[in-house]
Structure formats: C-alpha cells, structure tokens
C-alpha cells in the first residue's frame, strides 16, 4: 500500500475510534476528562516501560489504561473530599501526573526512545514506518492494527452496552434504580476512553486526541436530536475531518495531526453558525419571524386583560401600545396590520383597538399555553 494511503487509513481509523466514546463524553458533560486522561496515560506508559524495558510491549497499554482510570479515581476522590470543586480537581490531577511523566522521561531520556514532543503532538506520518512483522511477513503498520483493534472494541462495547449507556447518560438515577450499576459502567467506560487515548496518542498526540473525541460529537449534537444519528454522524464528521485534514496538511506540508484537529474545529464552527435547526443563523431567522407572531399574540393578550377594566380606554389606544409595549411605531404598525389581517382585532376610530371574538379566543388559548 502506498505510504499516503496507509496514513489516510490510519487517520480514518483513529478518528472513528475516538469519536465513538466521545459521544458519551459530550452528553455526560465530562468532556474534559478526556483531556485529563490523555495527558496522564503518559505516566503509565513511562512506568510500565521501566518495568518491561520495551516500548512495544503490551504492558504499556495496560499501564496507561491503569493510570487513565487512576486519574478518574483521583479526580473523584478530590472532589468528594469537599476541599476543592470538580473543575479544580481535574486541573490539579492531570498536570501533576503529566509533569511526573515528563520529568521521568527527561531524566532517563537516553534509555527510551520517547520524546515529549512526539507524545504531545504525535506524528502520524511516521506511524507507517513502525511495521508489524510476523515470521518475516510484513503485516502493515503496528499502530494501524492497534487502532483497528480499539475501534472494534469501542464499537462492540457501545453496541453491547447501548441501552445501559443511553439510560445512564440521560437518567442516571433511573439506571441505578433499574439495577445497572452506574459505578461499574462508569469505570468500564473510562477504561475504554483510556485505551482509546493511549492508542491514538501514538498517532496524533495527547492534546489532539481531545479534538477528535470532543469536536465531532459536539458538532453532531448541533445537527441531530437522536442518539443513533448522533453516533453515526460523529463518526462521519470525524472521518471527514481526518481526510480533509490529511490532504490539507499534505499539500501545505504541515503537521497532519494539527490539520486534522483544525478541521474538526472548522466543522464545529460551520455547524454552530449554519446548522439547519440549531445554528445561530437559523435562530436569528426564526426569532425575527416569531417576533411579529409573538407580538401579535402579546397584543391580543394585552387587549383581553384590559377588557372591561377601568383603564380600558387608555390601555387600548394605539399610541399607548407603542409606549407600553416598547414597540417602535413602525413595528407596532406591522403587528397591528397583521393582527387585523388575520382577524384578531379591529380598529375603533383611528385611535383604539378592540378584540374580535376570534382574537379573544386566541388570546385565551395563548395565555394558558
């Protein structure tokens, strides 16, 4: 396989593997745990390396996953101690673990071929050079195999635990009441996130893992309300960011991982503004439309409330409406014309408004909404 195809394949697999658990991180509002885990797994890798003295040993993944879970445990313990709030607990735990790892690497840099820059930034373009050979047969890049395995693992876990994950995400109390142990589920899920972070950071580095885990699901959430669609869309968005990022980086000769992260951000910003239903622009368009409708209803309710009261004469004057309801004369004219057109009000003289029976009914219904 040509080099650039191998890189693209790897990028796609990494992106998809990250996006899957990311959906639940975003929905459970624990996105930044991914930041914490992806940093502190480094300590597990370093410590496991001291044990086995081999950077390719599977024990490294085990050690990394263990520190990932340790991070979650420490954050929760600190938070529960009541001495610091949860956000501070996260911000205290992972820099400490990460610093320890960096310090250890710096002290024993000669012994391990692991430099801090590649940990932080990753270098996906180099991954294909680390091959997996068995009995002299080249089976392809090692990272690709590992990430492929993690992708399958994530997909399987989410399929099998679908209803538990869904329930515990949207209604943790009910999930517990139904007998799903939220604790077991929580830590299994965090283990999944840890494994994914370890596998991915070889390729894209610990910080950009966060982009792949968080941005595509957050983008998908702006586009759909259904969980199944959100999962599918997240994977799709992550994969397109990976491919577009790769080609952008290839053409400009810049960091591939950085470009992939940038593209996830571009996707998010586009959705933030342009999403058909929840985008900022759609919101503005809807509000301008609703403003007139809403104002018409407000006019009807106002007239109804003052029907038969002492101040009715005063309250139903057109110029009074402009003042009290804080409408500009132009806007007031639009609202009144529309209300007249749909038959809610009629003018009495040139100055006053009166509700029609239809308008009265509309206001009553509108008020009890």
């Amino acid at each position, binding site marked *: 396989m040509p080099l650039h195809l191998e890189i693209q394949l790897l990028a796609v697999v990494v992106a998809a593997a990250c996006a899957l658990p990311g959906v639940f991180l975003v929905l459970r509002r624990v*996105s930044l745990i991914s930041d914490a885990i992806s940093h502190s797994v480094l300590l597990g890798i370093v410590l496991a390396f001291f044990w086995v003295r081999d950077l390719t040993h599977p024990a490294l993944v085990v050690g990394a996953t263990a520190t990932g879970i340790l991070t979650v445990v420490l954050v929760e313990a600190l938070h529960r101690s009541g001495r610091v709030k949860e956000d501070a607990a996260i911000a205290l735990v992972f820099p400490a673990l990460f610093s320890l790892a960096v310090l250890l690497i710096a002290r024993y840099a000669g012994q391990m071929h692991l430099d801090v820059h590649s940990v932080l930034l990753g270098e996906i373009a180099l991954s294909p050079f680390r091959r997996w050979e068995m009995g002299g047969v080249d089976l392809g890049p090692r990272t690709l195999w590992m990430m492929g395995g993690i992708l399958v693992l994530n997909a399987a876990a989410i399929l099998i635990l679908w209803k538990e994950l869904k329930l515990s995400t949207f209604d943790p109390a009910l999930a517990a009441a139904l007998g799903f142990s939220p604790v077991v589920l929580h830590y299994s899920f965090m283990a999944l996130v840890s494994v994914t972070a370890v596998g991915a950071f070889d390729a894209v580095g610990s910080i950009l893992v966060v982009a792949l885990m968080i941005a595509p699901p957050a983008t998908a959430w702006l586009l759909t309300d259904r969980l199944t669609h959100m999962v599918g869309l997240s994977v799709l968005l992550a994969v397109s960011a990976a491919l577009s990022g790769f080609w952008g980086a290839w053409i400009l000769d810049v960091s591939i991982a950085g470009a992939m992260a940038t593209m996830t951000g571009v996707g998010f910003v586009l959705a933030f503004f342009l999403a058909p239903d929840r985008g900022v622009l759609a919101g503005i368009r809807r509000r301008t439309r609703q403003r007139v409708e809403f104002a018409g209803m407000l006019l009807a309710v106002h007239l109804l409330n003052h029907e038969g009261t002492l101040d009715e004469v005063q309250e139903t004057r057109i110029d009074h409406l402009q003042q009290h309801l804080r409408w500009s004369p132009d806007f007031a004219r639009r609202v009144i014309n529309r209300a007249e057109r749909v038959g809610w009000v009629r003018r009495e003289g040139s100055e006053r408004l009166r509700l029609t029976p239809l308008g009265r009914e509309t206001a009553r219904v509108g008020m009890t909404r």
Partner: protein
Amino acid sequence: MGDGFLSALLTDPTLRVVGLGAGAVGALAGALGCFALLRRQSLLGDAVSHAALPGIVLAFLLTGSRATPVLVLGAAFAGWMGTLFVMAVVRHSRVPEDSALGILLSVFFGAGLVLLTYLQRTPTAAQAGLDTFLFGQAATLLIQDVILVVGVGAVAILLLALFWKEMKLLCFDGEYGRVQGIPMNRMDVLLTSLLVVAIVLGLQTVGVVLMSALVVAPAAAARQWTDSLGVMVLLAGVLGGLAGVGGAWVSTLGDGIPTGPTIVLLASAVVVVSILAAPRRGILWDRIRLRRTRARLRSGSPGSALPGDTPGGGV
C-alpha cells in the same frame, strides 16, 4: 534547599534572573488564580493557555520578531478570542461549557501546530525557540522578560486592589451587585482579561501544557489554610512565587530537568500537604477529630460528645 540555594540565588546572575522570573510568574498566576478557582473556571486557564499557541506563532509570522512583548500580545489576543468563543458557544448553542473548552484547547492547539510546522519549513527558520512555549524554558528568560512580567503583573495587581470589593462581589454573588447598579459585566471582562494576561505571561516559563496548574494549584492550596479572600490571594501569591523560584532552582541542579514540570510538581506537593494537614479543613484533622469523638463516646461522657460545631453546609 537551605544555604546552597540562597547563596546561589544571590551570586549566580542567571539563576537570579530565572528565579525572579519564575517567582513573579508563579506569584501573579497564584494570586489571580484564586478568582478562577472560586468562580469554577479552573479549566478556563487550561483552555486559554493552549489557545495562546496559534497567537504566539501568528505574532511571529506577522512581525518576524521574537521579542517577548510581541509574542505575549499575540498570545493574549488568541487567548481572548478563545474565551469569547467559549462564551458564544455556551450562550447560543446546546453545547455545554466543558465541551466548548475541550474544543477550544485542542483545536486552537492543533491550529498552532499547523502554523508552527508551516514556519519550520520556511527559509527564515528563525522560529527556534518558539517551541519552548510548549513546556516553557525558564533558562531562556532574559532580564527584559522579567521586567515585563513584573511590570505588567504589578499593573494587574494594582487593578485588582482598586476593584477589590467589586471583584469579591462578582465571584460571590454577581447578580446582587447588578441590582445595586454595579456594572458587573464590565468587572467580569476586567477579571477575565487579568487572568488571560497572567496566563500568557507565564507561558515562556511554564509552557502552554502546564500553565493551568500554576493558576489552580496555589489557589487550591491557599484556600485550605484560610477563610478570608484577602489572605487567600496573598498566600496563593506567595505559594505560587515559591513554587516558581523553587522549580527554577531545582531545574538548574541537573541536566535536562525541565522547569515547567518541576514547578508544577512542587505546587502540586503543596496542594497535597495543604489538603491533608491544613488546620480545620485538613483531612487528617477530620480523622483526628472523629477518633477523639469516638473515644469520648466510648469513655461514656455523652455531654461532650455532641457534635455541636459541625458546619451546616450550604446547598
């Protein structure tokens, strides 16, 4: 530490500059970090420091200058844009704050990386040194840099002192301030700006990856020792300063000991000690009190065993 450290600090000119710079950075971040901690914005520091990276590279790309004030200005601009981005996302979409912060820190960092690698292959290639911003390199601090940190830091602290009571009200109960007619939104902008400034000033020393720890750790430690905001801010400043100076010193002891991680580890150690042992709030004291109460209960003097002073706790 002791004598060797003190005499080295006084006699070695490099260490003097580095120690002073790291100390000033730690003190400033520690003092301002208290407000981030109390407003539950601890992770904003993390996001802002990562977001600063593209600002630094862009500032260099546009001006061709490596002077610290230029880079700091770029970093502050990017950090500010990032903060606005998070505010806009939280306000105008269903995406929660933690996701917005995660996107901010990773995407801005990725963009910074793209710019950095773009720079690396340009012929000027004078970028050497820009990646010290990843982990910080206190050894690259010049006396001008230290003057910048101290000068800007002094202005920040002065502003903090001038608007002290408004800042306190903003962190405790901002809406109550608004009812009294105090422009709380403007105070919010000011406080966030000060925090952004403190963060970007520390990047050269501690680096974008670990700067957030210097914002949160001294504040979290100081909180355990006192119940007064004023004392807390002072103490966090002192602890942050000490962690800075200590880290700078330790990193001169051996080859390849990076300053940033050392400072962060020192500050973290202080947090652990504080949470365990600080009087009244310390976990160890809780244990001791519990044991005493149990012993008293066993010895059968029910009157004194009433936990009369248990805090009620807020909701």
